[in-house]
């Protein structure tokens, strides 16, 4: 059996090796040899992937657990470094390591010629390490290590081209917004510690405690704190997974290299919030109020981001908003306690969204950095393979029958409908969102690949099909986005491998939740038909609206007017709620309070100085006078002693 610690070990070795390469080659003009660096960069994620694969095949049903040692050991606080490899982490690890490997491979082509080639891959490997730790850990603190680690890598990679201050500002924003969420995570852990000590931070112990009927009474009394913990963990998830209210960083995060957007800001990192919800499923199902919050936040986010996606001109921004929207779908699923479905959507989404991003990356690469869709068009003839990949991804995301997104989105919609009395309304909202999804994605495909080329002529001459290193991963991912859904095809009896894999982890929680309300029975074919109809409707609207000559592109591609106020609504909100008060407070402290203190200091110093000067002026230059004075003083003292000492 492969020890579990090997999985994170490989990428961290890769990180160290690549950092060494990056630093040691920093003196030379042309940078490190790209072939060797690229090989190292792909090799270690690949090793991780292979070891995960081998482990997955031999995994017992209850999972594998390994404890490496204690991390923090105090009488009141004990945390181990331990790994847990079960159904949930298996699936997450499989696609995380797999997609990372693919994208690392893609990046060799994409990043060719960049001076910081080795640094880029060092970050990618570090990201993989953190993500593996996040997914593989058996306790919340260690998950938090990965949680902040991925945030850090995201920061580093968004600001990767740091010569441009705009990029590093976007990175800062991502990190800070994530930090806000992370503090929520930390406080969630503190709540759990208050309830039952640090042992509760371990997933196994937490689940055992929650499911044990003996502790029911204790849970009952701890319910307010438990609900608070749930809300706080969810708040952490909203930061990482870009949900309302902490969602503004993700569109800005598109400043990073496109493969990074594909890997971190679409396929893996942003889904870790969903992962955490699934991990804590046993906790969440006990507190319906938190589930409801998750559900509505998910629905609102999905709908809001879908509309915002309609207004974007930047190809990556459209994809970013669609990611937020899809994450909203996943949260909705988690909100109705269908954690396995939400993970399934994570899984399928990672394929088609990665494919879409990589395709967009290929387009941008071939247009030498052009991201504005209004200056694209007609690329299907020049880049057929890329177009094919993108169209596959498009079909998957809108839920075209047979493609991956169809199955997972269909399941989510179904779960929403049967969730309870509010079900039909939720279903309606989600279906509407699905229609909008099809509209803006159709808009993207139409503006990019159909019609006439609208960009400058010199860029047109440069357009070329992506090189093989980029194309191969794209094709693999597009195959995935076509067929990954068959792992849990609701309409095909028996095709439920995915659900069975997750059942040991989230099954108990979902059973608990579904027993709470009566199930509504409706044929799955109805949902499938309605879903398909939504996709077709959306495509039709997009075709009607956007399949016509485009106006001339002007400006920097940012939306204007009501579109901007919709898109940047939360930016404005953050600005008024957090940024401006903080700045005002800092200004007040700096300009008012600090100056008062400085004035007081100046006054005190002045007094001391005047006193010192006065004394000093007595003792300038007159040694004789001073000695005479001291003699006189001495005489006085002796006289006093003689007089009062009883001698006189």
């Amino acid at each position, binding site marked *: 059996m492969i020890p579990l610690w090997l999985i994170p070990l490989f990428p961290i070795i890769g990180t160290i090796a690549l950092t060494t390469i990056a630093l040691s080659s920093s003196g030379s003009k042309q940078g490190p040899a790209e072939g060797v660096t690229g090989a190292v960069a792909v090799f270690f994620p690949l090793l991780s992937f292979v070891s995960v694969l081998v482990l997955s095949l031999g995994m017992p049903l209850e999972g594998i657990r390994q404890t490496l040692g204690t991390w923090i050991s105090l009488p009141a606080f004990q945390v181990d470094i331990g790994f847990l490899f079960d159904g949930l982490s298996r699936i997450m690890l499989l696609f995380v390591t797999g997609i990372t490997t693919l994208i690392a491979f893609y990046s060799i082509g994409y990043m060719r010629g960049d001076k910081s080639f080795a640094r880029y891959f060092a970050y990618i490997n570090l990201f993989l390490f953190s993500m593996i730790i996040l997914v593989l850990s058996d306790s919340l603190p260690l998950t938090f290590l990965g949680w902040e680690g991925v945030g850090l890598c995201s920061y580093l990679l968004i600001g990767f081209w740091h010569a441009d201050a705009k990029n590093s500002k976007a990175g800062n924003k991502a990190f800070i917004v994530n930090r806000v969420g992370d503090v929520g995570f930390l406080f969630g852990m503190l709540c759990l510690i208050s309830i039952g000590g640090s042992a509760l931070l371990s997933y196994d112990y937490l689940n055992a405690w929650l499911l044990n009927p003996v502790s029911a009474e204790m849970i009952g009394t701890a319910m307010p704190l438990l609900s608070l913990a749930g809300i706080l963990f969810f708040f952490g998830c909203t930061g990482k997974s870009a949900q309302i209210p902490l969602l503004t960083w993700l569109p800005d995060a598109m400043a990073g290299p496109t493969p990074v957007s594909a890997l971190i800001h679409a396929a893996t990192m942003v889904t870790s919030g969903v992962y955490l919800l699934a991990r804590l499923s046993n906790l969440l199902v006990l507190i319906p109020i938190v589930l409801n919050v998750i559900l509505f936040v998910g629905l609102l986010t999905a709908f809001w981001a879908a509309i915002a996606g309609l207004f974007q001109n930047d190809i990556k921004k459209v994809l970013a908003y669609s990611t937020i929207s899809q994450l909203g779908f996943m949260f909705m699923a988690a909100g109705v306690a269908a954690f396995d479905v939400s993970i399934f959507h994570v899984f399928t989404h990672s394929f088609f969204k990665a494919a879409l991003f990589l395709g967009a990356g290929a387009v941008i690469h071939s247009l030498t950095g052009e991201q504005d869709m209004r200056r694209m068009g007609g690329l299907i003839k020049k880049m057929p393979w890329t177009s094919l990949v993108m169209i596959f991804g498009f079909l998957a995301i809108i839920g075209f029958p047979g493609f991956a997104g169809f199955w997972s989105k269909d399941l989510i919609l179904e779960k929403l409908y049967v969730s309870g009395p509010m079900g039909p309304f939720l279903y309606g909202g989600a279906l509407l969102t699905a229609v909008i999804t099809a509209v803006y994605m159709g808009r993207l495909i139409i503006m990019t690949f159909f019609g006439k080329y609208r960009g400058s002529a010199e860029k047109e001459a440069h357009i070329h099909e992506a090189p093989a290193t980029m194309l191969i991963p794209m094709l693999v991912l597009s195959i995935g986005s076509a067929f990954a859904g068959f792992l849990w095809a609701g309409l095909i009896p028996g095709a439920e491998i995915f659900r069975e894999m997750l059942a040991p982890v989230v099954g108990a929680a979902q059973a608990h939740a579904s027993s709470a309300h009566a199930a509504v029975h409706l044929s799955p074919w109805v949902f499938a038909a309605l879903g398909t109809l939504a996709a077709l409707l959306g495509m039709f609207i997009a075709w009607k609206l956007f399949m016509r000559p485009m106006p001339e592109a002007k400006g920097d591609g940012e939306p204007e007017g009501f579109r901007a106020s919709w898109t940047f609504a939360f930016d404005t909100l953050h600005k008024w709620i957090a940024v401006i008060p903080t700045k005002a407070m800092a200004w007040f402290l700096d300009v008012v309070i600090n100056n008062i203190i400085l004035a007081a200091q100046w006054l005190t110093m002045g007094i001391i100085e005047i006193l010192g000067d006065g004394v000093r002026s007595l003792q300038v230059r007159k040694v*004789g006078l001073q000695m005479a004075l001291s*003699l006189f003083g001495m005489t006085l003292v002796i006289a006093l002693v003689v007089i009062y000492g009883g001698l006189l």
Partner: protein
Amino acid sequence: MELQASYIQIVALLLFAIGISVTLTRRNVFFVLMGVELALNAVNLSFIGFAKTLPATASVAGQILPLFTIAVAAAEACIGLAIVIMIFKSQESADIDNYSNMKG
């Protein structure tokens, strides 16, 4: 009439008073130095005078310490004169009031 122990102290007191007066009142730097020596001598005399009022072993310390005082005085005179020589070079004056424009 016999020699009294306090007579010695009174002589020492007079010498000390004269010594310190010389140090503080005279303007010539050499007199300042000599005044210090005189005061030190007075202290030595006082030491020995007191030593003689003590019995046996106790009387030893008072007779030893003047030796050290003399040695320290020698060192002090040595340094003091060296400094005087140095100052003389730049000031061309023995008047200590003229030395006061040294920074300090």
